[in-house]
């Protein structure tokens, strides 16, 4: 079982993701430079956070054109698990692998804080075994995390069970106050129709060890390993 951690110019959470995978949950991980056009031999793909290409034009707008994104598209179409975190989520949106777009936080401030997330579906490889309604404590760090999609897209996401995480309070109530960036319907993470591609603004790789303030992020990577093990069994 081997996971790919993509590295673009400006990625800065790639080592955190690698550490969480390799040293915390103990799955083989390898960096893959964005100029690679193949993901052969990999079982899962992590698109880490950062500021690819300095966020030129729009967050993720340049990275979507990197050669590796063609490979990610084929990998995703084949049902392989893909998780995009923060800037990785923005790249998935720009690439059209997930619907919607990100705009500037409604506060106009960079937000860097622990938030609570309410799990909305266990159908993704990263939330398998995490019951709907579970509250996870995971940090965010972004300036453009204000999720936007038109009303039709938002309703369709809800109807098809594609809203994976919503910002909530510590008791799991989805409230205006618990929304750190103004995201439509408190959306913090969504998946594609197939469920195998997940994009989320919060950083599970930054909270995969209790010593770092929360171990909740690890649950997503543990779920991914269990999902892969079940698939190959």
């Amino acid at each position, binding site marked *: 079982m081997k996971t790919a951690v993509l590295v673009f110019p400006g990625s800065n959470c790639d080592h955190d993701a690698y550490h969480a995978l390799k040293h915390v949950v103990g799955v083989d991980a390898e960096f893959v430079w964005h100029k690679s056009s193949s993901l052969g031999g990999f079982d899962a793909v992590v698109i880490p956070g950062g500021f690819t290409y300095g966020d030129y034009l*729009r967050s993720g*707008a340049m990275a979507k054109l990197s050669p590796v994104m063609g490979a990610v598209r084929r990998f995703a179409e084949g049902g392989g698990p893909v998780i995009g975190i923060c800037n990785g989520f923005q790249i998935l949106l720009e690439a059209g692998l997930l619907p919607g777009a990100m705009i*500037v936080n409604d506060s106009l401030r960079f937000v860097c804080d622990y938030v609570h997330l309410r799990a909305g579906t266990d159908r993704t490889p990263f939330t398998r075994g995490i019951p709907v309604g579970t509250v996870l404590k995971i940090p965010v760090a972004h300036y453009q995390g*204000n999720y936007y999609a038109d009303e039709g897209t938002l309703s369709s996401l809800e109807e098809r069970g594609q809203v994976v995480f919503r910002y909530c309070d510590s008791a799991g109530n989805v409230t205006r106050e618990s929304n750190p960036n103004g995201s439509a319907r408190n959306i913090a993470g969504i998946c594609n129709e197939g469920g195998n591609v997940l994009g989320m603004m919060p950083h599970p790789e930054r909270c995969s060890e209790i010593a770092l303030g929360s171990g909740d992020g690890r649950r997503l990577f543990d779920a991914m390993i269990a999902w892969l093990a079940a698939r190959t069994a």
Partner: protein
Amino acid sequence: MKAKIYVTLKRGVLDPQGKAIRTSLSHLGIDGVDDVRVGKFMEVTLKEIGVEEARRRLDEACRRLLANTVIEEYRIEIG
């Protein structure tokens, strides 16, 4: 030949920067400003390929890269 491309947020998409600028203008005592929308302006220099062809290529450039049509609209001026 030169072209100008304007990319702006669609009506209905919240523009927090525009809102903040509008508030700042009123703090400066510059009144009567109802709304401010912040966008991007790009100047593109092209080979002499003709206006129609330039428009066709720039339209594709806007759709595929320069604008995100989920949230933005664009306008191309040539010449």
